[in-house]
């Protein structure tokens, strides 16, 4: 039988280019301790730890959860390590949530992190592989052709990506944890930044960040205890799903992948959502390169195929005046500790439906979508959170 699950505590680090004030253990503890404090519990109330991060080569530590076990209070408990590429932060939260929904544990600590300054992600993503065509261009070089295909297919004007870049950075100004705070951001500033991978300018790409995110997932009972102890509402899980598809084969639509559409359909059915644009109050969606906002608007069914860029253009996705604000936290474009970037999406929607998002709060947010993707747009993780107990 499937039990109810709620986010009862959330915490994140201040994301920066270099967190050289802390070790990896110090970084993950910072987020974990904030999540525990938020949930009103200590280490001993945690039954199990689920930790996720992107490739181990990003720090040069193989299976770092072994070294991190004592720092995360896991000694004598189960610790579990998830790696599903860029979607891993979201998948990690889902694996933790299933440990509660399956009735096995009462409280599970989920943690995700990346300390990108310890290595060079661009290098780690570009190691030549035997039997495989070399990809020597990092993630941006991989995705730029997909973006050009989207522009051709949809007829979107060239400035849509730049508009997303400006919107998300303006929203990041309201998030004290965001890595990038660019008060002077403007279309002109984005356009004048160097062209990295046509059509992506430097300021249309995510930064490289050090950072961590953590959530305490709790059962029905744990949720009512946390609320009684802290006075803060839980964020209830109304739906959760994952989907994967192969990297490449003839006929695969890499612009609007079926795995993303299927995953959304699954999670909406669980949550009883039929019109995402009108029923969700906000969404946090993995947009590492600006153009992925219009692309995912379509993939997630917020509009018809080919219309995503119109929502961006008319300001529908802006916190200021939009009807369906996306990435009020500033999104991946403003903070990108890769392994944690997916969890930050999942965490930010928890803050929204709990009314705890501070300056970037959407007034009265009750239902929200968190999405993460990874690999060659082939791994998807999503959840729907609500303020109401399902």
């Amino acid at each position: 039988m499937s039990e109810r699950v709620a986010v009862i505590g959330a915490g994140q680090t201040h994301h920066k280019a270099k967190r050289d004030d802390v070790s990896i253990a110090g970084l993950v503890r910072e987020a974990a301790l904030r999540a525990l404090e938020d949930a009103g519990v200590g280490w001993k109330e945690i039954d199990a730890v689920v930790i996720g991060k992107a490739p181990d080569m990003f720090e040069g530590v193989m299976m770092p959860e072994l070294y991190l076990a004592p720092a995360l209070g896991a000694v004598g408990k189960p610790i579990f390590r998830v790696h599903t590429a860029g979607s891993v932060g979201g998948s990690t939260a889902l694996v933790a949530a299933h440990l509660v929904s399956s009735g096995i544990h009462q409280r599970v600590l989920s943690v995700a992190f990346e300390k990108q300054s310890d290595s060079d992600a661009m290098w780690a993503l570009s190691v030549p592989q035997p039997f495989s065509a070399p990809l020597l261009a990092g993630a941006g070089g991989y995705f730029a052709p997909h973006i050009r295909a989207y522009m051709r297919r949809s007829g979107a004007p060239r400035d849509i990506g730049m508009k997303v870049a400006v919107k998300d950075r303006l929203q990041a100004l309201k998030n004290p944890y965001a890595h990038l705070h660019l008060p002077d951001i403007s279309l002109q500033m984005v356009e004048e930044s160097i062209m990295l991978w046509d059509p992506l300018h430097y300021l249309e790409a995510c930064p490289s960040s050090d950072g961590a995110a953590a959530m305490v997932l709790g059962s029905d009972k744990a949720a009512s205890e946390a609320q009684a102890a802290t006075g803060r509402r839980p964020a209830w899980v109304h739906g959760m799903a994952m989907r994967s598809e192969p990297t490449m084969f003839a006929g695969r639509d890499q612009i609007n992948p079926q795995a993303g559409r299927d995953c959304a359909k699954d999670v909406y059915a669980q949550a009883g959502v039929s019109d995402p644009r009108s029923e969700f109050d906000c969404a946090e969606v993995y947009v590492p390169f600006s153009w992925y906002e219009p692309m995912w608007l379509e993939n997630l069914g917020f509009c018809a195929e080919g219309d995503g860029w119109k929502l961006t253009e008319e300001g529908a996705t802006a916190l200021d005046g939009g009807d369906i604000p996306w990435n009020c936290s500033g999104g991946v474009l403003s903070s990108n500790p890769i392994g944690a970037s997916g969890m930050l999406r999942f965490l930010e929607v928890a803050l929204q439906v709990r009314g705890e998002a501070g300056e970037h709060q959407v007034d009265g947010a009750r239902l929200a979508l968190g999405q993460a993707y990874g690999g060659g747009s082939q791994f998807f993780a999503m959840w729907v959170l609500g303020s109401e107990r399902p």
Partner: protein
Amino acid sequence: MPRQGHRPVAVVSFAQADNVRRELRRNEVETLMPVFAEVFSNIGITKDDVGFICSGSTDYLAGGPFSFVSALDAIGVWPPRTESHVEMDGAWALYEAWVRLQEGDIDAALVYGFGKSSMSDLSKVLALQLDPYVLAPLWPDPVSVAALQARSLLDAGKATERDFAEVAARSRKAALSNPKAQVAYDRNVAELMGEDYVVSPLRTHTLPPITDGAAAIVLAAGDKAFEWAERPAWITGIDHRVETHSLGARDLTASASTTKAAEVAGVNDGTVEVAELHAPFAPQELIVAAALGLGDDVLVNPSGGALAANPIMSAGLIRIGEAASRIMDGSAGRVVAHATSGPALQQNLVAVLEGV
């Protein structure tokens, strides 16, 4: 049948690749493809019959990021599937699938683990598993770490070098009847004791082979298990625990995490007939067997264990598959499987499997 009100979930099929020192003809995808074909055809199903897929592997063996991604091509995840991956031995992938099957919305799962150790230098790769600030910079290799543990056993008076040799002699002899074994022989203890030390007190026979390999298991819940298998191996208890990382802060002669996991899994709630233990170095088998509280009458590692073949990231899953096979072939009624991860048995998983 399961304890603690869990939904009954069973191992219904198991397959593994040939365990070899250096697989030069096949990459990981090509290694996995016949394993999947076998694990499905054993019970007459296809990939369309499983609702969840989970794998275990590590990027550090392949020396590149996302090594699990191309492995999906061995299945062909189209239309898209619900799928997940752990950077752990496949035994933990099985744990995630077991958890997922508890919720009742899906009835079957495919789990697998794979890795080609020959593509890298394990003595360097496994050193990178250690604390990156105070241990890894010293590059302690896995044989030296295991030797430290073996030396602790000797110093504590808990075992002798002869005990180590007996484990190795028994395991390699048992491996003679395992067609998948990489190292199998019938040599007496005195002969093994005459070998030189690799790292004192470990002689060659106490070390696992370096292995390329892969394995897969199909799990099924409730009626589905009986539909697919004549004698499903029901997982009646499963748990995993971790200890602190620092070698200096642990009692290396014991395995507290194994004992705890065994308690939760209910190892000693019945008679154990067979145990498949993931003890890559011979002295570790003594530690794990003691931590599980196994009596002298338990048949340990009839497959030869990790001393017969040690494919990193699937050796633990293979222990579960081998133990389950004893139930499925009718030769045992209640068995224990164990998997380990990390330096000197830092993390351990224990499962109890039973026939009806």
